[in-house]
């Protein structure tokens, strides 16, 4: 199923993102980031439904929580779509 992963620098940062998104009415969940998506080793990511990225990014920006990197999961693979 299509979804977005927003990479976070730490589990606490991911939790701040989750808290901000939930306050904005956007449902999301925290996951361990797949190893091949991270340059620095272990990381966490916030997973969003495909239609939720557009409202999520400005909500995160307003809270000074800019994502490290953003990936789209589509047709069984991740593709970076921005940061």
């Amino acid at each position: 199923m299509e979804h977005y992963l927003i990479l976070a620098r730490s589990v606490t940062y991911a939790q701040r993102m989750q808290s901000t998104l939930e306050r904005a009415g956007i449902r999301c969940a925290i996951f361990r980031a797949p190893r091949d998506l991270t340059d620095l080793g272990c990381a966490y990511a916030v997973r969003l439904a495909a239609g939720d990225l557009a409202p999520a990014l400005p909500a995160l920006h307003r809270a000074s929580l800019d994502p490290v990197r953003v990936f789209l999961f589509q047709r069984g693979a991740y593709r970076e779509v921005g940061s």
Partner: protein
Amino acid sequence: MIYLDSAATTFQKPAAVAAAVQEALTGMTSPGRGGYRAAMRAAETAFNCRQELSELFGLENPEQVVLTSNATHALNIAIKSLVPPGGRAVISGYEHNAVTRPLAALSARVEVAAAPLFRPQAVTEAFARCIRPGVDAVICNHVSNVFGFAQPVEEIARLCRTRGVPFIIDASQSAGVLPLDMTALGAAFVAMPGHKGLYGPQGTGVLLCREGVPVRTLLEGGTGSASLQQEMPEFLPDRLEAGTHNMPGIAGLLAGVRFVRQRGPLEICRKERQLALLAAEELGTLPGVRVYAAPGLRSQTGVVSFTVEGRDPEEVGAALADGGIALRAGLHCAPLAHKSAGTLATGTLRLSVSDFNTREEIFRFLEAMRVLIP
């Protein structure tokens, strides 16, 4: 036991604290170390703890809340982040060894802003004389652990802001009792234990860090983040939290902080001061007892020191302990405070209360004192 040593650690805790510790022991592993349920429960608990603490102490960002093993650990990080070896620090005359020993280890040049007990205006004036360009940090406790003297940290913070000197507050005796808004104060760091006025388990502490203040690590190791990098992460809290977290402690601390927020620090302070005032006033009527308190416990919290003429405080403390009453005699790990108050030669007996003490317990303590001092 009648426990009157809460300035060391609170012994009676809210029931929710023990329940939270038990829940963590059986249901949580380590935050940031996995995506399975027990690890994520630990992460949620740690985050909720940071969030509650940031709301209680006026911080916007819970990432600036670092969980430590005690206030001493937190103070060591704060002091060693700001004061280089041989650097300059200004401290109050009522500091604990948790401040003076790290400064001694750094061979720092330390100036004491000396002032008499229970004279906050004199404390402010002393700091005003000492804070000048070139000082690496000003360090002051909010409340003296020996005398309960509430020092004017708001005024000292204002001096530090206007003179551009970083300020470290040791909130060991005030966290959970007196209001403290870190953002309004503009302090660089606020250090506190989790196991005193916040009612968490022993082995918990907190360091609140202002954004943008550089922090030095005391420990390096695993953080569950940026694992390929051999330097510690630059971001908080990971930079200062190497190794496995004390999850039972953090879960208990979360329950304790929630208790404090529900009760309200002002209400807790009001109750503690009433109990301490009752003890101070009655102790003062006993022959040969000198009580270190200002009238009405002005500028003082629920901590009262006293001495008995011709009696070693340790001997009196031991006799009270035999009767099931726990309070602390000696120098209370704060020889500088005793030197400032003129009690270094003998030390004092220190009575300190928590929200769980009662008037009945104070009466029983006073009765025991009347038997000891006929």
